[in-house]
């Protein structure tokens, strides 16, 4: 299985509004409102955490099994990738190269 580091796309603008996160594209035409769990996952999509690590943190933070957390994270990343607000990177964003 490939290692994937999801990262928020540069073009999006997002703000936390109460428990939700609202993401809009820079054209302002489309928006996505993320619930509490999805918002937690979204904030971890900084390009430095692999999908399984995000699932592990979701499992630690919420009352959800690791298997369910992995499925939830995988499905959400697929959905947000299709929505074109997340991209899947094969390497860490902040990886230092020597």
């Amino acid at each position, binding site marked *: 299985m490939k290692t994937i580091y999801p990262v928020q796309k540069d073009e999006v603008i997002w703000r936390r509004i*109460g428990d939700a996160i609202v993401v809009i594209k820079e054209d302002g035409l489309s928006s996505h*409102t993320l619930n509490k769990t999805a918002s937690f996952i979204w904030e971890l999509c900084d390009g430095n955490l692999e999908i399984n690590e995000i699932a592990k943190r979701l499992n630690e933070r919420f009352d959800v099994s690791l298997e369910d957390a992995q499925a939830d994270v995988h499905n959400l990343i697929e959905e947000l990738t299709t929505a074109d607000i997340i991209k899947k990177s094969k390497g860490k964003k902040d990886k230092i190269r020597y």
Partner: protein
Amino acid sequence: MKALLPKRVNTTELESTLGLQIGSICCELRCNDPEILRKLQDVYRNYLVDAEPDVFVELELTSRLSTSKISSILTRSRYIRHGNRFRSSGRLLQGQYDLDSRTVKITGEKALIDPDNSTNLLNQLISVSYYSACKMKYGTNPPAMLVHACGILRNGKILIFAGPSNIGKTTIARLCSDRQGEVFNDEILLMSRPGVNGKGVIIQNTPIIGDLLPGRNTTAPLRCIFLLKQNNRTAWRYLDKAEAYLRFMRQIIGPSCVGNYDKKTAYSIMADFSSEVVKSIPIYELEFNRDSDTLWRVTDELEGITGAEYLN
């Protein structure tokens, strides 16, 4: 409510420039046409100030085309912006910003600027001038933003009615008699950021002309915002914050109001402002059947509600 004192205007003496106050911005209008300048002086009489200008707007007017020709072009005209330059298709006007000299130069047909015509270009001019000056003076953190809404002063506070074009903002202004409140403006208001100067959200009237002429240059605190929806009854409901945020940003500010920032910066400014307002001010959806008595009865129901439940 705080009344702002306008400059004392001697109507018999024409000045070559006008100092126009738009919130905390002073815009100096220069024009090569004395007749237009005199009309602007009259239209903006409550907003004229003697103050150091933040931005200079130079109007060079021409009379190249007939009014009917201009009207014909206007129906299919588009506004095009490229860097610091802008123009309308059909060559009705063109202009450019020069941030170093704090100047906006506009060349265009006289009929477009003439307040006696209903081309609405004056409003765009004020909007452009305000945000150009804000960009120079405050960067990406303007202390107030222009909002597309009707403001009614009632019981010492402003009720804002907003929504897409033709939803009923001007109708509400017309339904407001002296007994029920005072119409601030039925088109564009200036809304401060929450907490600026340790106050709540403050609404200020603007020299922007709607279907009703702008009233006095005054300020008052904002009570709440109603997003209008036409229906066969009049009723209200709280909007959850995420929905309120999106609708506030799309229906009340709108990117076209934000001026010469790049798209992402404009939306970031709008997002910051909208999220601050939504956290501070209750926003309701108001179904509205255009009946005056029901309208004010329903809005009065809200006088007993603090909004604390919503805001917390």
